[in-house]
């Protein structure tokens, strides 16, 4: 069978044998088990997949690390649901998903409190253990580690609209008839829905009455009809803001404004409203949580990577990786904070971060999301441009 002469007949025979062997091999997962000691697959928001972050880890652990960037939380969770728990070892999404969806659905597994809680104690005070979003609903298991976070409401060009005025008006700015055709809508659909709720004086993360739903529908229509442009690309939105196509855009914050600010455009600024319908608060903040996927064939490197990104130099790299720049919870420790330059701190609006956090509530699950999404998408389709 292994002689080198290949005739047409034995080629077919060999192909058949090899195909059968390959098929049999795929049914024996244990064979692959040993190989995963040096392998790690990360599914994350952009930044963690940067070679600046991954290469030192690859060298230190002699590991083969594959990282793929995700473009939306629901998309990422969909892929785990569709069976990709077999593929990934770590998943990095925003705070509510782990506790509310992924852990109850068995998509992620808890990490060691003993090992990781001491690291959490070095974070900024509000993220110290037991941190609500990192725990399961029974407050027993630790479901992941926080790192990047940021206030997320809207962005203005301060040459056109002053910071003070924008903070005072809040999301009502986008209902002002004078703003019609002068703002964009960054279509991160789930965030748009929360922000439209706030514009309609509704708490987005509570159960809603019929009247509130109707009011939401009306505000959604008004905001879509008044928007100059819609895009899900933050670079394009910043460009429109810088070039004067628009004066502000709804749904945005440090995450979207920072690339423009770091480029010297300090007139582009994320705004957190001073007040609003969420127990008096008017802004929302997101916190990323990196969790270990419930992979049937887990990689031991998943926990190591979680610990690795807590190191001061790596934290800084995560904060200032490619694409967008964001504060990290590790800035609670002096040596991490000291590694940021004045320009870098200015890009992530460090001067107002504490105040903005105080005026914001944490990103959460909207119990009426599905019904609101129908109203939202109808308003988008029926938009009178």
């Amino acid at each position, binding site marked *: 069978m292994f002689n080198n002469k290949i005739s047409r007949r034995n080629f077919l025979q060999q192909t058949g044998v090899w195909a059968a062997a390959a098929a049999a091999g795929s049914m024996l997962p244990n064979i692959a088990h040993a190989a995963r000691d040096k392998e790690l697959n990360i599914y994350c928001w952009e930044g963690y997949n940067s070679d600046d972050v991954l290469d030192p880890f690859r060298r230190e652990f002699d590991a083969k690390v594959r990282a793929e960037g995700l473009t939306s939380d*629901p998309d990422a969770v969909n892929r785990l649901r569709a069976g990709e728990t077999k593929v990934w070892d770590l998943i990095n999404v925003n705070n509510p998903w782990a506790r509310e969806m992924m852990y109850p659905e068995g998509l992620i597994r808890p990490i060691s409190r003993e090992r990781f809680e001491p690291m959490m104690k070095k974070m900024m005070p509000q993220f110290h253990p037991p941190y609500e979003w990192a725990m399961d609903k029974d407050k027993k298991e630790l479901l992941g580690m926080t790192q990047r976070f940021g206030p997320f409401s809207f962005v203005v060009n301060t040459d056109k609209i002053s910071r003070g005025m924008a903070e005072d008006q809040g999301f009502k700015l986008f209902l002002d008839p004078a703003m019609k055709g002068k703002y964009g809508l960054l279509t991160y*659909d789930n965030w748009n829905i929360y922000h439209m709720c706030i514009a309609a004086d509704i708490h987005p993360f509570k159960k809603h009455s019929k009247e509130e739903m109707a009011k939401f529908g009306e505000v959604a229509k008004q905001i879509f009809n008044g928007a100059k442009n*819609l895009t899900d690309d933050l670079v394009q939105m910043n*460009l429109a803001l810088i070039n004067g196509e628009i004066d502000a855009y709804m749904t945005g914050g440090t995450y979207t404004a920072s690339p423009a600010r770091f480029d010297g455009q300090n007139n582009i600024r994320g705004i957190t409203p001073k007040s609003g319908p969420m127990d008096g608060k008017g802004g929302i903040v997101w916190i990323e949580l990196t969790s270990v996927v419930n992979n049937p064939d887990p990689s031991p490197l998943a926990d190591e990577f979680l610990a690795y990104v807590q190191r001061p130099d790596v934290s800084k790299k995560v904060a200032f990786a490619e694409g967008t720049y964001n504060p990290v919870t590790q800035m609670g420790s002096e040596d991490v904070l000291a590694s940021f330059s004045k320009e870098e701190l200015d890009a992530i609006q460090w001067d107002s971060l504490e105040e903005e956090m105080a005026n914001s509530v944490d990103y959460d699950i909207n119990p009426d999301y*599905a019904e609101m999404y129908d109203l939202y*998408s*109808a308003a*988008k389709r029926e938009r009178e441009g």
Partner: protein
Amino acid sequence: MQGQANRFLSWLRQPGVLNAVPASLFLLIGFAGPLLMVFGYSFMPPKTFSLFQEPTLANYSSVVSDSYYISFFWSLTLAAATVVILFFICYPIAYGMAKVFGKWANLITVLIAVPLLISENIRLFGWVLVLLKNGILDGSLQAVFGFSASGMLYTVPAIVFGLVYVYLPFMLFPLVIGISMIPDTLKEAASDLGASRWEVFREVELPLAMPGIMIGGILTFILSLGSLAESKILGGQTVVMIADDIESAFTFAQNWPKGSVLSVLLIALSGTIVILLFRRIDLDRIIGRR
């Protein structure tokens, strides 16, 4: 019964059938399989993620009662407009390439094909920089002539422009093949028999080039119908295309069954159009088998 089985076996042993087995299996698994899954999902209860539940028509009725007709309308209208505009732009170029330019035609082919190597999103984003307020075009006009040309971006014409720009090669090359199939002798004969230039074009050229026109038309129509990037990047989603609705349903709405219904309807629509049009052309003749 035995005879039938034997006939089937001897049919199966034909070289043509045997050779087609790997490709057919590949198509069945890689092409028909996912489509069947989408079809299956369209009958599952809304906002669920499993294929093994009691089938329902709820998604179809909600899609019909919602305002999705607007997205279908825009996709169909913009696709049709793109095809018509592309025909008028490409026909003269194709004629030149097939009959007039000689060896220069190769250079033009390369020039038109090279941009295809660059991602569509990047090329469209390049146009954003050109059309943006205070961008390359507007800024240059202001500096040189003192008037502004802002307001071109985020409009329906900007979307059509993007579609025409991106899909031009898909109309042009089939047209070149179509036109090069017209024997010059036939046109000469028509002229000798007293036909005017217009009559030669209408009675001889156009019918003979029709297979190329049809293929170019179908290709560009189907591609435009499923397009998304042009309306997102150049149009600022001033209108929502059906492909955008499908994407939203699968992602932010977390409603795979609804996304599947929209996909099934779009496939059915484009499939019907292709089948109706392909009845009128003879593929064998175009690839020169007859």
